[in-house]
């Protein structure tokens, strides 16, 4: 199971706790995680990536294993420790005030 941590506002929308578990087959990629997340929690569609272009929202970042993966290809395989559920994949709201 993939472990996913999402921002507080999205937890409220999806009625979930701090960590979401997703069952994803190989290869585990950012795109596969978001596809599975939106399939399970359709209320989150459009909140992380654009509904039409699928571009990541500019004020959100993707981290895992202490690495910023925001600018990696969404189809690139994620680190093995994310794929086996040892480390979580984090969706972080940029610190931009407000």
């Amino acid at each position, binding site marked *: 199971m993939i472990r996913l941590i999402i921002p507080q*506002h999205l937890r409220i929308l999806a009625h979930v706790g701090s960590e979401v578990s997703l069952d994803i087959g190989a290869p585990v990629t950012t795109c596969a995680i978001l596809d599975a997340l939106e399939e*399970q*929690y359709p209320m989150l569609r459009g*909140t992380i990536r654009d*509904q*039409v272009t699928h571009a990541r929202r500019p*004020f959100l970042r993707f981290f895992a294993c202490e690495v910023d993966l925001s600018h990696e290809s969404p189809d690139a395989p994620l680190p093995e420790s994310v794929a086996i559920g040892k480390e979580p994949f984090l969706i972080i709201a*940029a610190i931009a005030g407000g």
Partner: protein
Amino acid sequence: MSKIRVLVGTRKGAFILSSDGKREKWDVSGPHFAGWEIYHMKGSPVDPNRIYVSQTSGWFGQLIQRSDDGGKTWHQPGTPAGESTKTPDGMPKSESNKFAYDTTPATGKPLTTHQFYDGTQRPWEFKRVWHLEPSLTDPETVYAGVEDAAIFRSTDGARNWQELTGLRGHGTGPQWQPGAGGMCLHTIIQDPGNPLRMYIAISAAGAFRTDDSGETWKPINRGLHSQYIPDPNAEVGHCVHHIAMHPSQPDVLFMQKHWDVMRSDNAGDSWTEVSGNLPTDFGFVIDVHANEPDTIYVVPIKSDSEHFVPDGKLRVYRSRTGGNEWEALSKGLPQSNCYVNVLRDAMAVDQLDKCGIYFGTSGGQVYVSPDAGDSWNAIVHNLPAVLSVEVQTLP
């Protein structure tokens, strides 16, 4: 006795203020959607318990929320959890927050361009929903005015949205430009006597009218004069801030332009200035008394470079003559050291015999006048900055 429900959208959530017809004691519910910008919330005239909400965020984009029980509970219309988000043939379903400009050859227009602040051309890019206008006859039908300026319609309770492409694509788009708040379509008015007719307004493009249910649109800006565009009398490019209409006189429109308060007596075909003796004719809101079609209200703002009321005094101005002759209304409003603004969708009226007037400020106050403006009371003092105010008069 009738009840009043005031729907308040703020920078950090939605609030619902409820009272009986006396409008003296108020219950405050909220914040709903805490931390999100609520640009607008409005109830269906057909089913007042059906309330649509525009919920938006710089981080997470646009959402639409809906209540079917008068604001007690909310949900996002669209695909329920656990149901596939794809159709049986693999196509992604539309969602309540999916506002995709229609660029299909059959029904849409190419992704046209508009002016950016610096005069260069930019393609349309969806940013947020500024205004939701439920149908006068069908609770499932609702219109959305969005930034970048376009109008969308849902006929299934906000589950799916389709652009009315005739507006964005009718030809003058390259002359439209964003105002300080963005290039937003902020006003949608349906003609109660003519279901084919509707008015919209855009900052900064102007006012437009359709006479065929949104298929085609035409600019209705003759008589507007704006110094901030190369041709001050141009067909489009005017920064219209808000338009109001009384349902008994659907051909009479009142407009608060960037500068100038205007009036049309022929459904927008031409406009005349009715700023009269206002201390400044810059402002955002304008509204009409529920029972007196020629009694109108504005809140003059000092200037477009100082977005607060003049002289540190919060004053609503009322004209009982449809413009030109204005009186200041200040009883109960702060008259010193007040520097708030009142945004374009932040004034509304109720439908009681003694018409109530409501407005919200950038300082988080929501005021009510239960006597048509003669005196005012603050319902709440310290909400986040108020973006919109709508009022429902309930049996």
